[in-house]
């Protein structure tokens, strides 16, 4: 007795589900991906109620609302600030910097100032509010 073989139709692999899922994944990754590189700057938090920081040990950098800098008692601009910071840290890299910000200084300005301190070789920075 002979059985009739069921004829196999020539069908390819169905691609539609593959495409569906790929598109869903693409849309998911497009919406959730960020190309922003998140980094962080470390800051000192002097312990509350601890000993007061000796004024002699700390060098103050004043930051004005209009973007001006004042290192100690000298007003400095542009490269002059970087140079004097470098000179200072080359003598003693462990010098603590106190960054005093005036009302109206934005976070970006404060971070820029911290950036310049770290770039000049500074290691420890802490921030305070300041009223001229």
């Amino acid at each position, binding site marked *: 007795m002979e059985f009739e073989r069921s004829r196999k139709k020539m069908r390819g692999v169905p*691609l539609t589900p*593959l*495409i569906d899922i*790929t*598109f869903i*994944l*693409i849309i998911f*990754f*497009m919406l*959730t*991906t*960020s*190309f*922003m*590189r*998140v*980094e*962080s*700057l*470390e*800051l*000192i*938090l*002097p*312990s*509350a109620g601890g000993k007061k920081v000796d004024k002699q040990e700390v060098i103050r950098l004043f*930051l004005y609302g209009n973007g001006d800098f004042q290192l100690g008692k000298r007003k400095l601009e542009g490269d002059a600030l970087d140079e004097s910071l470098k000179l200072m840290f080359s003598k003693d890299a462990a010098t603590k910097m106190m960054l005093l*910000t005036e*009302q*109206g*200084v*934005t*976070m*970006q*300005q*404060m*971070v*820029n100032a*911290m*950036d310049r301190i*770290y*770039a000049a070789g500074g290691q420890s920075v802490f*921030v*305070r*509010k300041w009223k001229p």
Partner: protein
Amino acid sequence: MEFKRIQKKPIEISLIPLIDISMFLLIFFMVAGAVEKFEIIPIDPPVAQSGKLVDEGHLVILLGRHNEVIIGEDIVPLSQAQTFLTPILSNHPNKVITVKADATVDANSVIDVMDAIKAAGGKNLSVVTQSKAVVHADN
């Protein structure tokens, strides 16, 4: 006179290039980008060159454009931040606290938040920065 009709062949759209390109895009997005952490308020951190790639701390404090303070997942008024943080930090004083503040926020309000952390007993603090400015449509 009779014209012979041209027999139309059934058109088949080839799907292979489509799949190629979608796979390429998929792999690109998977490899090139990091999945963004969802945050309650949009925050554009300040740009800095000397930032280091550090893992985000265990406790993230967000400071939005309009001085709203979000500790973990709770919106906390600045005046109550210290009382909110004290029980958390008294158990784990060495917890790394990450302050993520918007670039346009007033530096003095960031310092207020830092003072609250300090008063609550925090020791390790880092400020979130980004290595390159991201251009936002609303800026």
